[in-house]
């Protein structure tokens, strides 16, 4: 007769006195009638006795604690420290990136200042090129007409200021002609070629149309009515132009972002490696 698992559980519990009265009566009845069950109980009892006689081992050493042992466990482990530093650097990196983007948008809002310089230079360069390249003269016509209007309207009083402006014009190169002297020189030079003739025609047209010259913002005529000045032709002081040019080549924000990014990744990897080694 085979003993079932349930019987083994009943016998085991009977051996330890863990059966309730009803179960106890039932198993005792069966033990009286079933010798196999009796032998099984005997075996289990023997096994239990053997286990109870298991020799006690002598401890290899004392396990008393020292303050260092207790303290050492509470100290920050290297892996945890590295993970913390990595997380900290990541947060800093996010902060720097936000600041960087904020700065980018602020510069974006101030953007009209930068094109002023670019356009001024672009116009002056193109004018010089136009003198050499007749095809471009058509595009520069308005500028020349402006100059002609300025000459006519300024008249004698402007002649007194002319040398100073002329000096500036020389400094600036052959860009925009601010004086009559400079203008007359250039007109004489150009009078021989076809481009110059075209300029004269435009000057005549400009007299009628009352166009505005950029130099008017520089030497305003209070007697004449206020004329709207195109924003692209506004005068930009020299210092401001140079200030814009003086933007450093390496942005400190970039350097900071690279350092923080590299640090966050390095410490993260170090923490991961230490953790893997420990496990």
């Amino acid at each position, binding site marked *: 007769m085979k003993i079932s698992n349930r019987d*083994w559980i009943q016998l085991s519990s009977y051996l330890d006195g863990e059966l309730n009265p009803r179960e106890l009566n039932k198993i005792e009845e069966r033990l009286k009638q079933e010798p*196999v069950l009796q032998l099984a109980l005997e*075996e289990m009892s*023997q096994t239990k006795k053997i286990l109870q006689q298991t020799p006690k081992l002598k*401890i290899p050493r004392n396990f008393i604690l020292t303050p260092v042992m207790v303290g050492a466990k509470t100290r920050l482990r290297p892996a945890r420290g590295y993970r913390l530093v990595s997380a900290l650097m990541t947060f800093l990196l996010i902060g720097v990136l936000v600041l960087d983007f904020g700065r980018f948008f602020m510069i974006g809002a101030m953007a009209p200042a930068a094109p002023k310089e670019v356009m001024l230079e672009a116009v002056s360069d193109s004018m010089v090129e136009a003198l050499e390249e007749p095809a471009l003269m058509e595009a520069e016509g308005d500028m020349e007409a402006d100059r002609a209007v300025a000459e006519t309207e300024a008249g004698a009083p402007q002649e007194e200021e002319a040398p100073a402006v002329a000096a500036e014009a020389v400094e600036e190169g052959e860009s925009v002609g601010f004086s009559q002297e400079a203008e007359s020189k250039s007109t004489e030079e150009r009078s021989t070629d076809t481009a110059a003739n075209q300029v004269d025609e435009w000057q005549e047209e400009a007299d009628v149309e009352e166009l505005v010259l950029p130099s008017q913002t520089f030497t305003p005529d209070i007697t004449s009515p206020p004329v709207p000045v195109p924003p692209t032709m506004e005068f930009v002081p020299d210092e401001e132009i140079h200030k814009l040019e003086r933007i450093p080549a390496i942005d400190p924000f970039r350097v900071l972002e690279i350092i923080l990014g590299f640090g966050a990744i390095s410490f993260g990897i170090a923490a991961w490696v230490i953790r893997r080694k420990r*496990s």
Partner: protein
Amino acid sequence: MMDLQDQIKKSLAGDLESFNQIILSFQSLVYNQAYRIIGEPDAAADATQEAFISAYKKLHTYRGGSFKSWLLRIVSNACYDEYRRRKRKPVVPLYPEGDDGDEMESASWLEDPSEKPEDTLMRRELSEAIQYCLDRLEYEFRTIVVLVDIQGLDYATAAEVTDRPLGTVKSRLARARNNLKDCLQGFKELLPQGLRHVGEV
């Protein structure tokens, strides 16, 4: 001499010396429990040390009742951690070498100098036979049989220590005993007189 409750109170106040007194009282029980569950002396020592450190830190979670049960629960957890760690990364146990250069399978600390050599040998062999059979049981079965049959806990306490229902403890203990009976049959000659007919049914 202070009683256990006073030592616990003082330990809770940060008196490490008082806790060390508790350790001295329980270290044999804890080490034996750890050794029978893990089956390796070094691992058992590590688990014992970890258990005491953990017990010191978690002493505030002790809410009265049987301190032995509370401590054995911590030991069981420490053993399980150690067992899993060793299972992931098996280590080769190092035995000390004898005069002839051969490895001695049992360390000298297993021997009691007051015992006769033949008794020491018998004790050691019986201990090894039991450990051999325990090692062949599944971890949870082994833990329960060690708690009930070797440490002498009742079912309710064993259920509390292992965090298992009473029914589970009963069935696992019965199966563990049944398996051990079959295993120990192979070591009859090592068993004490009167217990040699085990497994003859």
